[in-house]
């Protein structure tokens, strides 16, 4: 239905089932970025000449597009970053500096992507603070029974994925945010797998911060957004110093520019941001609710197809999953599965998915992960299933094999 909007899918005919890693780009996004470089390229916020005024207008208009997309209260609350990882590092530095003292706790889930774990480890080390973790049920869901007990009076920051990149679990973030706010704790939501996939409304969620990446929702790589409530951003010191984030500068000191520029030092990824806004417009034209529904349909087809293969073991499938499934096979390693699938022009991811602690919880060294988005067709999943049957045929024990010295 939507595949024809995506040139790469036409050229390569790949069954692209690695959307959790990155998504393909519609022609309109590519066109908008080329148009910028062809007709409007100039640096932003600085020049008086027409091109700079035009470039700045496009860039700031993109900010408005993003603001409306997530229903943020003001454009000053939208900060452009190079991606989710940069956004979280910004928060671990600036918000961490503001809030964390020795002995404080930062509360995370044990199944976060390394980008929502390692920056907090670095902060904890810097500030002699401690990382604590939600409990998980055996279904890889946050244990709601022990939830309240985790929110002690030493917890100063909570950071959590909306949707797990390895398991597809949709966490009960609204509930957690409500509970956190009763205890005056700010909550950061990692929306890398959810923004552009399901409706995300920061007023409704009332999250204090939301981070995500453009390239996982049909936008270009090297773009992302950090949304933060004004009252937090105003209190936070800048992350990076440089041009555009200052007001007055002497040799000894500088004063800061107002929001959002305080957190946007240096020349931004102007073309990227314009591409990101074009991606949002493209998705909104289809409708995020429709995108959610179509992705859900593909996910359920993927899940039921995999469940019919008795040689496949699924991991982390629970009450609410969206778009992503991890699986293993007893007789074949994820590398070999992914390799054979590649021979069938099916793209999946094999490894630890930047979630080594989760692999440890699942007691597997690695999994194969398939992830769908609205432009996948059922035939992509059929190709995956046929490929997996081929993997099984390649690796299954053959009764006519001779016995040997060692072996499995």
């Amino acid at each position: 239905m939507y595949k024809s909007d995506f040139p790469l899918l036409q050229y390569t005919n790949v069954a692209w089932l690695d959307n959790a890693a990155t998504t393909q780009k519609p022609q309109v996004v590519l066109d908008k970025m080329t148009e910028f470089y062809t007709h409007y390229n100039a640096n932003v916020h600085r020049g008086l000449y027409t091109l700079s005024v035009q470039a700045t207008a496009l860039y700031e208009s993109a900010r408005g597009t993003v603001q409306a997309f997530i229903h943020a209260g003001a454009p000053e609350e939208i900060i452009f970053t190079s991606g989710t990882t940069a956004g979280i590092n910004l928060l671990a530095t600036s918000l961490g500096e503001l809030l964390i003292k020795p002995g404080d706790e930062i509360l995370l889930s044990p199944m976060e992507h390394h980008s929502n774990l390692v920056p907090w480890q670095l902060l904890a080390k810097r500030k002699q603070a401690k990382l604590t973790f939600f409990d998980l049920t055996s279904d890889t869901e946050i244990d709601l029974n022990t939830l309240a007990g985790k929110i002690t009076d030493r917890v100063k920051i909570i950071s959590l994925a909306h949707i797990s990149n390895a398991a597809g679990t949709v966490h009960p973030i609204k509930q957690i945010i409500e509970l956190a706010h009763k205890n005056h704790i700010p909550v950061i939501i990692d929306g890398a797998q959810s923004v552009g996939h399901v409706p995300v409304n920061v007023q409704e969620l009332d999250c204090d911060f939301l981070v995500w990446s453009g390239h996982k929702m049909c936008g270009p790589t090297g773009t992302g957004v950090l949304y933060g409530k004004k009252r937090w951003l105003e209190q936070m010191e800048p992350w990076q110093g440089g041009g555009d984030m200052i007001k007055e500068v002497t040799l000894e000191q500088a004063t800061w520019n107002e929001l959002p520029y305080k957190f946007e030092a240096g020349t931004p990824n102007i073309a990227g941001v314009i591409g990101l806004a074009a991606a949002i417009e493209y998705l909104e034209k289809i409708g995020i609710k429709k995108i959610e529904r179509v992705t859900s349909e593909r996910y359920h087809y993927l899940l039921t197809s995999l469940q019919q293969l008795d040689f496949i073991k699924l991991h982390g499938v629970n009450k609410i999953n969206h778009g992503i499934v991890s699986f293993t096979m007893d007789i074949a390693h994820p590398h070999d599965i992914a390799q054979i699938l590649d021979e069938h022009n099916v793209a999946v991811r094999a490894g630890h998915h930047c979630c080594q602690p989760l692999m440890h919880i699942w007691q597997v060294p690695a999994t194969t992960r398939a992830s769908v988005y609205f432009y996948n067709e059922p035939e992509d999943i059929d190709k995956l299933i046929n490929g997996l049957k081929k993997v099984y045929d390649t690796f299954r024990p053959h009764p006519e094999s001779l016995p040997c010295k060692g072996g499995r």
Partner: protein
Amino acid sequence: MDLYQEQILEHYKHPQNFGLIKNATYTRKELNPTCGDSFTFSIHINDKGVVDEVGFAGEGCAVSTASASLLSEAIKGKTLPEVLNLKTEFILELLHIELGPARLKCALLPLQAVTRINQSS
């Protein structure tokens, strides 16, 4: 790509010299945390200074297991200095396949164990 030609599959399903030997002169374990592949090699060197017994244990993908199996057989009869100096080309020739950069690491893991065999873990 005929990565899964008969030789690789055969060595994966029925690896040679599988199982650590008793009376090993040296034992060494190498692990790739990215994928969990892990192999331990044990070798015995006789009084002529030559490897006369080899055994390995562990688990990994088809490429790393086949590499370990072929390597375990190939180092028999070599001296310790010869074993420690084995290079990437040696294992690639044993495997006899084209490997992309992503899978090269798989093939080299057992070689790492063998070329560091006399180092303490």
